[in-house]
Every structure is written in structure tokens, then in C-alpha cells.
């Protein structure tokens, strides 16, 4: 580091003006002077962070996806109107799908479909959270456990959870227990792995600083490791939700039974059985919307607020 202080060659003849300035600096350097200098430095170097105004958010964040969806609808309608695909059993018109929506709404079943699946998905996710969090923490912190089950845990992530449906049906039968088992097998590895990578990425400096402050053992885990690992953990939760939802849909499509009530997966399967393409489309669109909505309403705001509070959110 070549700062001026270390360089001793700078002690040559000093011109008169500088000498005077130096004297003035010395005499005027009382308590208030230092405080004033410091206040000036602080003011100059402080970063002002503000939130983007609502209007800008609307234009930059909301408008583009709305345009994209509108474009898809236009193309879809055009395909049907100009008879590019002239077979309603292959491609129903947007109007026909909308007809399904209003029918289901008027019969009062639309919200039932959604609620059946969403309640299952969220309950399953909460269970996965309760199991995946301590599991991830143990894998991250206990070396033996990590060596023993770490690779299996990350391997499980790449196993499509639909593979668990047949054994789950055989073990647990066609009921809700089997649904939850499939969700857990899909989501627990994601959540645990997210926490493990979150803990791995905690800067060693924080751990050292924590130790000098006296945060060791469980106190260190609670006060330093967990909050420091929070961004990675949240990313794991987000992925865990996606896996929960996917696993659940796979389970509902494959294992439909009258006792289980009609969720979105069963709705899709019913559409296939009755050759109603508009019902199939309705089910697919609802599955997509729910998946996006949960992410947008719960996980994204959570992640953004954590990142923003730490100054890690880069405005684009």
C-alpha cells in the first residue's frame, strides 16, 4: 500500500503556504472541529437508499408480463380463429376455457378445486419446513452427518418426486397421507440443501467476529449462523415450495380416487378421461397460476425484504 503516510521521502522542504495551512489546522483542531469534519465526511459518503415509486414499479415490473400474457392470448385466439388448428378437442378456444371457468364458478366448485390442492400443498410444505430445517442445520454443522447423508440429500433433489408416487400408494394407500409423503420427499431435500449451502456461504469473518463477541456453540448458531444463512435458506424454501407443488400435482394426477376430493391434479385427469380439452387447459392454467401466485405473494416479497435490508438487492 503506497499511502502518503508511509513514504518517508516526502519530508523534504515544505513551502510556506503549506506550513501556514498546517499551523492553522493544528490550532483550529479542537473538539468541535473534529466533530464537524467527521459530520461532513459522514454526510458526503452516506448512501441514500430509497424505494422505487409505485408508478415506476407498475411500468417496469407489472406491464411487461401483462403484455406477454396478452400476446399469448392473441396468438392463441388467432390459431383458432384462422383455423390453423381446426380441432377443438386438440386446441380449445380461449373463450371455451373461459366458459369452463365461469361454469365451475357458477357451480361453486372452482374455489373448491383450488383450495383442495393449495391447502394440501401448503400444509405439506409447512411439514417439510419443520423437518427440513433441523435436518439441514444438522447436516451443515455436524461433520459426520454431512459425510453420511449429505450426498444422498443432494442426490434426492434430482430424483423426480413422481417416482415416489407408486411406492407411497402401496405403503400408505390412496389417501391424504400418501399425498403428504410425496410432498415431503420432494420438498425436504430442497429445504435442507438450501440451508446447508446458506450455512456454507456464511463469511468466515462473521464467525470470527461472533466468536470474539462470545457467540459460540448454540448461541453462535442462533445469533450468527442462522441469520447469516437466511438468504440461502430462503432460496431453498422457494425451491422447496416449487417441489412441493410439483410433487403434489404428480400425486393428484396419478392417484385419483373419489375419497380424495377433486384437486387441480384430479381436475386435469378428469378432463383427460372425459376428453374435455378445455377442462385440461383450465386445470393446467390454474396449476400454473397458483404456483406463480404463492411465489409472488409469499416467497418473493420475503426474499426481497431480506435482501433489501442487507443492501444486497441490486436495482436493475
Amino acid at each position: 500500500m503506497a499511502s502518503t503516510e508511509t513514504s518517508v521521502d516526502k519530508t523534504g522542504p515544505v513551502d510556506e503556504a503549506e506550513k501556514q495551512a498546517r499551523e492553522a489546522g493544528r490550532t483550529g483542531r479542537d473538539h468541535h472541529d473534529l466533530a464537524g469534519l467527521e459530520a461532513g465526511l459522514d454526510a458526503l459518503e452516506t448512501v441514500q437508499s430509497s424505494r422505487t415509486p409505485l408508478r415506476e414499479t407498475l411500468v417496469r415490473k407489472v406491464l411487461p408480463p401483462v403484455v406477454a400474457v396478452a400476446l399469448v392470448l392473441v396468438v392463441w385466439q388467432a390459431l383458432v380463429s384462422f383455423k390453423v388448428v381446426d380441432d377443438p378437442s386438440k386446441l380449445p378456444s380461449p373463450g371455451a376455457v373461459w366458459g369452463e371457468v365461469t361454469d365451475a364458478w357458477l357451480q361453486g366448485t372452482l374455489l373448491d378445486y383450488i383450495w383442495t390442492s393449495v391447502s394440501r400443498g401448503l400444509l405439506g410444505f409447512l411439514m417439510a419446513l419443520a423437518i427440513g430445517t433441523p435436518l439441514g442445520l444438522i447436516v451443515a454443522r455436524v461433520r459426520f452427518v454431512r459425510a453420511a447423508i449429505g450426498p444422498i440429500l443432494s442426490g434426492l433433489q434430482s430424483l423426480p418426486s413422481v417416482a415416489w408416487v407408486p411406492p407411497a400408494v402401496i405403503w400408505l394407500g390412496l389417501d391424504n397421507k400418501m399425498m403428504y409423503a410425496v410432498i415431503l420427499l420432494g420438498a425436504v431435500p430442497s429445504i435442507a440443501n438450501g440451508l446447508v449451502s446458506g450455512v456454507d456461504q456464511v463469511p468466515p469473518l462473521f464467525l470470527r467476529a461472533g466468536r470474539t463477541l462470545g457467540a459460540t456453540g448454540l448461541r453462535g448458531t442462533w445469533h450468527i449462523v442462522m441469520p447469516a444463512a437466511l438468504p440461502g435458506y430462503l432460496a431453498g424454501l422457494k425451491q422447496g415450495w416449487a417441489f412441493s407443488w410439483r410433487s403434489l400435482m404428480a400425486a393428484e394426477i396419478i392417484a385419483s380416487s373419489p375419497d380424495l376430493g377433486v384437486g387441480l391434479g384430479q381436475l386435469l385427469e378428469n378432463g383427460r378421461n372425459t376428453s374435455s380439452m378445455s377442462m385440461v387447459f383450465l386445470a393446467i392454467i390454474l396449476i400454473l397460476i397458483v404456483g406463480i401466485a404463492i411465489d409472488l405473494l409469499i416467497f418473493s416479497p420475503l426474499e426481497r425484504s431480506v435482501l433489501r435490508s442487507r443492501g444486497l438487492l441490486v436495482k436493475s
Partner: protein
Amino acid sequence: MATTLAKAADSDTAAVDHAARIEHVSKSFAGPTGQQLVLDDITLDVAPGEFVTLLGASGCGKSTLLNLVAGLDRPTAGSISTDGRPALMFQEHALFPWLTAGKNIELALKLRGVPKSERRERAEELLELVRLKGAYGKRVHELSGGMRQRVALARALGQDSKLLLMDEPFAALDAITRDVLHDELTRIWRETNLSVLFVTHNVREAVRLAQRVVLLSSRPGRVAREWRVDIPQPRRIEDAAVAELSVEITEELRGEIRRHGQH
């Protein structure tokens, strides 16, 4: 003005009370060519209320020594005793970004058992001490580099340790901010009865701050020489006396570095 002491062995060994006592400490690490000796037989005392700077070129193991004193690592040989657990300040501010400035300080208070009802008030006092009144609710990323180091200093002071270890805490700051923080540190050190062991590779900084400058040789780190700095505080980094002693110490440091190029 500046008197040169002979060696560490000359320092007053009769004194029982000390903020830190480092006795015949050696430290080696497993390196690519077997065990590598980083610190060799270091003996150094920091008296209560004393300000000592450890000066040395890269590879002299000054940060290693500080880690040993902080209890983050164990010496290979020798013993270190400190009066209570020392506080440690790093070159990076090491503030926790998930907490506000005030809460960072409160965590230090909490971890040493200060009751909840007193923490807020104590944290505000400490912020005022480093002249950051009103920064309590600020997030770390909203503060400038100099402000962050002042919050880190307040947090370290919040540990209420007798000894403050500082590992090049101002090295990453610009010259003016560093200058201001030197003044602040000197003021706070004089207002409290804190002992400071300050590591730096900046000779002027060492002379500007310390009552005693300890020069370490490199690879392995040994105490090469000591200087007592009798220039009255408050000093300025551009004071002629500071410059004069700095020239002398720099010559010595250059000599130490030159030795490594010869074999």
C-alpha cells in the same frame, strides 16, 4: 523525544498487572514444505492503559499473533494471558448486515449478559462516544466506510474488555477518514482506561497512535526492536516529530525486509 529501547526483555517484568502478557510464544502452521514457523519466541507485555502498535512487513505474522491473543487460535509453544476476554476489531468492519448499527452493538451487550432494559441506552451512549448519534436504526450498507468502522469500534467497546485488539482497522479507508479515525481513537483511548494492541504495516500510523512501537521481523516473526514514543498527544500524522521517528523506524523496517532478498 523518541527514545529507543533495547529489546522487549528490558521492559519492566516486575509488574504483575498487565492487559496482555505474551511469553515465549511460537506458532507454526503446516505448509507445503512441512511445518512453517510463523512466530518465533515472541515475548511482549501490554500494560494496563497502554497503547502498543505491532509493526511489520507482510508475512511477519502480526495478524496471527493478534488471533492468538484474541483466543481464536492456540500457540504452538509459550503462553498468553489476558485480563479478561479481549475485544477484536478487523480490517473489514465485520458488522452483521442483518442487524442495524444499534442492534449490532446491542448483540455485543447481550452476549456479555447486559440486561435487556439497559441495552438500548448503553448502545446509544456508545454510538454517541464514536459520534454517531442518530445512527442507531441505520443499516450497515447505509453507512460509509468510516462510519462502519466507528460502529465496529463502538461494538468492540460494548464488550467492555480491558484490552482492545485492532487488526489494521483503518487500512481500507481513505487518508482523510483514516486521519479522523486516528484522532477519534486517540480521544477514546484517553477518555477510557483501555489498553490497545494495534497491528499495522503503516509506520506513520504506528508512530501517530502508539506509546510504544514494536517492530516484528518477517518469516519467522520475532520482536526486532522497540521504540517508546514520547511525543505528546494529541499528535498529528504530519508532525515533524512523528515524521522524524517514522524515518528511523522505516529505515529499520527496510533493513528487515532487505535481509529476505539476500538468500
